[in-house]
């Protein structure tokens, strides 16, 4: 083998090795950071294991929001058409968080099936709802149980 050829071979091997490493790294990181979206009835049915981070979206149930005395810890329930899941969150809620509003939260279940949220997202618009939540609010016959003022926008 000539010098040039050997050098070229080295370069190609190096490139392939690097690319392989990068791909492996990428896919591992990717696998670990996939966040699934679940709706409250799926979680309430016990289909989601505790400990894994995921997104939970639905309506904030009327009358379910309560605050602890010192202010920053909030408990509420997220509901879809058929079930609801208790959620606890520590921190500042987004501007449009209120009862009856469709929101998405990030977090994980603890052993008592309480959802510990570390991030709460609500849109900046009172009449807008994210498509995921809108879909979660359809019952199994495809009928929507969304609040009336939002149906026009989402459809």
């Amino acid at each position, binding site marked *: 083998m000539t010098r040039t050829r050997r050098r070229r071979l080295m370069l190609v091997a190096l490139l392939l090795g690097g690319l392989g490493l990068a791909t492996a790294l990428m896919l591992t990181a990717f696998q670990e950071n*996939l966040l699934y979206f679940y709706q409250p009835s799926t979680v309430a049915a016990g289909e989601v294991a505790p400990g894994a981070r995921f997104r939970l979206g639905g309506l904030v149930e009327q009358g379910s929001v309560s*605050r602890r005395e010192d202010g920053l810890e909030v408990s509420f329930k997220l509901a879809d058409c058929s079930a609801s899941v208790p959620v606890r969150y520590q921190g500042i809620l987004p501007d449009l968080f209120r009862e009856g509003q469709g929101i998405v939260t990030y977090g994980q279940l603890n052993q008592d099936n309480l959802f510990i949220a570390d991030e709460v997202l609500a849109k900046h618009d009172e009449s807008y709802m994210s498509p995921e939540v809108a879909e979660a609010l359809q019952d199994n016959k495809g009928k929507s149980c969304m609040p009336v003022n939002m149906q026009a926008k989402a459809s």
Partner: protein
Amino acid sequence: MIPELGHFALVLALCLSLVQSLLPLAGLRTGKDHWMAVAAPAAAGQFLFLVVAFVALGWAFYSNDFSVAYVAANSNAGLPWYYRLAAIWGSHEGSMLLWVLMLAVWTVAVAAYSRSLPRDVATCVVSMMGLISFGFLLFTWLTSNPFGRQFPAPEHGQDLNPLLQDPGLIIHPPMLYMGYVGFSVAFAFALTALITGRVDSAWTRWTRPWTTGAWLFLTFGITLGSWWAYNELGWGGWWFWDPVENASFMPWLVGTALIHSLAVTEKRGIFQSWTVLLAISAFALSILGTFLVRSGVLISVHAFATDPSRGIFVLALFTAVVGGSLLLYAWRAPRLARGGEPVHALSREGLLLMNNIFLVVAAAAVLLGTLYPLVADALGLGRISVGAPYFNLVFVPLTAPLLLLAGFAGSMAWKRTRWRTIVQRLWVPAVVAVAIAVLLPLVALGTTSVAAFAGCVLGTWAICASAEELWRRSRGSRMMWSRGVVGMTMAHIGAGVLVIGISLVTAFGSEHDVSLQPGENASLAGYDFHFQGVKDQTGPNYEARVATVDVYRGEQQLATLYPEKRHYPVRGSVMTESGIDVGVFRDLYVSLGEPLPDNAWSLRLYYRPFVRWIWAGGLFMVLGGFLAATDPRYRRLRHREKKFAATSERGHTAPA
């Protein structure tokens, strides 16, 4: 009347774009000179009519003509006039009009500055841009016409999305679009190269300033977007790996690779097919960016438009443009390949090859994370999103080597360099870089850590090695500072500054949620925040509750911040305006939460060291790009080629 005039002008521009693309191509094919000569005037005419259309829409916004549906949906008489004008691109339809207007601007500029190009090349480039313009004008006219009327006209408009009522919005989208659309020039040049079968150093010299120009606009747009998100979203963050941010970041990464690979193609005459492929990819990703943001397929804070029929049209357009150009590439690119010499690892082309690999892999990683959720959703694999940790985890090991490589940019010569030369030149900058990386956090922030040092040393290395290059070039008998070299060095220094900012804000930034009653205080990172209470205020189109927070360090008062919570009644939306005390070494940032019992409020306090360096780095890169793009070298060479072109044109017959 005026909106109809705008509509009419839009249709005329559409017709002219067809003329601009087809007639010159036919002329090129049949060798009819007067058909080819149509390209430039048609481009100018198209530009003129688009300006008319744009001004007409602007007038409708300015005069609050709510019979125009788009105006009614995005403006309100209560808006200040500058936001009313910025509202032109506040939503989908107007953005598309801005997009095609920008394309016309670039086309006219190319037509004006391409007189020194061989006739067939110039004609082909302009007609390719005409084709792109035709596709997007058709899309705008058929699915997103901003001039549609509605009767009876509503009395009030629905107001501009309050998120967008910020000085940043006035310039962020136009800059971003200038960048996106600017890559169409490189794309048109690439197609021309495939059609005419020539990628020589003259071709690269014509392409380079245009590509750098597009890149600098995109860089500026992204920097502005980051700054806007920091100011406006109230989360104290400067980058969220939101799909819409990724949409602009992917063309940036590939565009950066393209700039570097063009340098190799010009100086060494290798990597031709790769350069052409990068040019196609950069523009393809720009269109993808437009598609992602504007079709409503994304679930994100930015995705305002939701209309699937548009999405399908853009998808078809995307397939036509990208599929067509890739087919052309597959067919013609083998003719471009020349048996090049092997690339030595210790040479500038070797360095740039590695740069390209890292950039393209990084772009692929972002693409995977951005598109996979869409694909999974379409295939019914469940609703998935990819978290920011993925991007951070993948991105850091891919970009760190880039900074390391940037340090060698000046001292690595073409073809082959000796280790000894490099060590001789760079050991001093390396030592200085390590010293600064140790001292900078200690002096400015009084603390340091291994991670902070590791990030900083990458940044200071890029800066010091670049400074060495400038210093060495100023030492000889005459200054050797060409604009291109200074531009490159500036951009690399910018990258260094940016990385220092990112490292330190990530390592030492902190935040704290508190609930405070008036008169109470909280502390964060050695600063005391005294909450004075909340007052009501009325803005032009909103009601605000404004808090007063005094910031102390020890006994000394540093600043008074006024974070706000604004309620926009027309849309029924609430916005958080943060209060920020800006500094070179740290920002103090307060955003107002919600009212709690007993007159208390929840507040979020942020300490953001070195966050300004991130945007300063971006601006350095823009400045560097500007210097490089306006290097007189390109103009001088063009004149020389003009003579060459005149003599050799008879040699190049019309392409097969």
